[in-house]
């Protein structure tokens, strides 16, 4: 299984834990990741708010840089995934627009044939391509007794069909159950965390974050498991600010699904980026899984 790998800017810093755990887990599962050489930022939602052609041209540069022998690209960031997939789809569905994007690429000596590369999210690759048997085979430290709430967010499940239910997705539920965890079924698992709203309207953003934390806590979860760096930042990074704002006392660790895979596969937590989260996960992990993990 060979994929071009698009980490995206978040995974360089803020979500380095996601990047490290993606690479560790992929290694173990036989997923070969070839990082796109000299990739550029996908522009998040911000380029699309200003100039659609520029947004797509910026994104398409990354598609154009995928080596000819590779026909699939995988992104762990939900926003990157959507941008890459959306740009490819726009170019396929609207050939005239596709031509304009290619005119832009040509200014940089590049070219992309619409539809050549299939864009995948990391979760889909592990659940759909690697699959249950191969994942279960690798589990040496089952997550038995740990209650986890999968959090999907928006950008992977709704805009582009990824073979899951857009309102009530199940893929991460399945994956976590293969690891032996107790998967919490809670109503808001695909609701929105507010994205960049923390930068624009704190009261509005904090309320969206509060609802998610509250609902997961009402269902007695030990931690929330996410699949997007922005979701992780909002729920983890802003958790203490949300507590301050509402007078709540949430203390929920927010981890990436790849970190949980890594723990179940027996990988050293340090290599998986544990410790980078602001609400620390180790105490509850060690309490529930019994003893030292290192």
């Amino acid at each position, binding site marked *: 299984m060979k994929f071009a790998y698009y980490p995206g800017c978040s995974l360089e810093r803020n979500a380095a834990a996601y990047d490290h755990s993606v690479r560790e887990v992929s290694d173990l599962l036989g997923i070969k990741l070839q990082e796109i050489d000299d990739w550029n930022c996908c522009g*998040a939602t911000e380029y699309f*708010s200003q100039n659609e052609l520029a947004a797509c041209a910026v994104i398409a540069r990354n598609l154009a840089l995928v080596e000819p022998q590779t026909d699939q690209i995988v992104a762990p960031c939900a926003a990157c995934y959507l941008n890459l997939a959306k740009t490819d789809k726009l170019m396929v569905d609207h050939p005239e627009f596709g031509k304009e994007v290619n005119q832009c690429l040509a*200014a940089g000596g590049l070219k992309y044939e619409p539809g050549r590369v299939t864009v995948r999210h990391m979760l889909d690759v592990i659940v759909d391509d690697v699959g249950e048997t191969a994942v279960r085979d690798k589990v040496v430290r089952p997550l038995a007794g740990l209650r986890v709430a999968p959090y999907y967010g928006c950008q992977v499940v*709704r805009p582009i069909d990824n073979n899951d239910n857009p*309102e009530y997705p199940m893929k991460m539920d399945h994956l976590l159950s293969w690891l032996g965890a107790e998967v919490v079924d809670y109503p808001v698992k695909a609701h929105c965390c507010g994205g960049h709203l923390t930068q*624009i309207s704190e009261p509005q953003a904090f309320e969206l974050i509060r609802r998610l934390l509250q609902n997961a806590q009402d269902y007695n979860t030990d931690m929330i498991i996410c699949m997007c760096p922005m979701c992780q930042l909002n729920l983890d990074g802003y958790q203490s600010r949300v507590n301050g704002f509402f007078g709540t006392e949430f203390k929920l660790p927010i981890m990436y699904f790849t970190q949980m895979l890594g723990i179940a596969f027996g990988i050293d937590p340090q290599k998986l980026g544990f410790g980078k989260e602001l609400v620390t996960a180790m105490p509850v992990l060690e309490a529930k899984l019994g003893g030292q993990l290192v």
Partner: protein
Amino acid sequence: MAAHIAEKKGTFLEEVIEATPGGERLVHCLQCGSCGGSCPSGADMQYTPRTLIAMINANDRDAVLAANTMWACVSCYFCTSRCPQDIPITDIIYTLKRLSIAEKRYRDTDAPALAKTFTDFVDRYGRSFEFGLATGYHLLKRPISMMKMGPMGLQMFTRGRMALRPTKIRQIEQLQAIINKAKELSGSK
């Protein structure tokens, strides 16, 4: 449908349709309210998506472009996935953002400034900062915001989750040539 659009020649409705892939579905709105009812930001919006769609169909250009709806939208795609008429509502909102920014019609929102700051970084470095932490990069311009971040900002730094500037890609000139071409073709600066 073509006839429908032809009738609307030169209207705001036509402008929005032209600028949005799949936008021609707009005219099929049933005003069922599924979009507004699904919107997590509905309560903060002057006009819910349902009302906004009605206003576009009524060619109420000025009111639409000055609305706060677009800036309260978080692109969660609930409206789009639930619309029984397959209207690409989230994408229509992106179109309205672009028009509103291009003509500076927006009011009382930092969203356009944030978008500009962000894409300026992309244009210059080819990489960006973490946009959920934009306040960190407004350090000089907006010291209050940084102070408001308080311990959170510090904790992010000590865990290596924040940098002072983005990394720069090697072929930045290539990216800039691509961006300039896009701006030239789309007639914006």
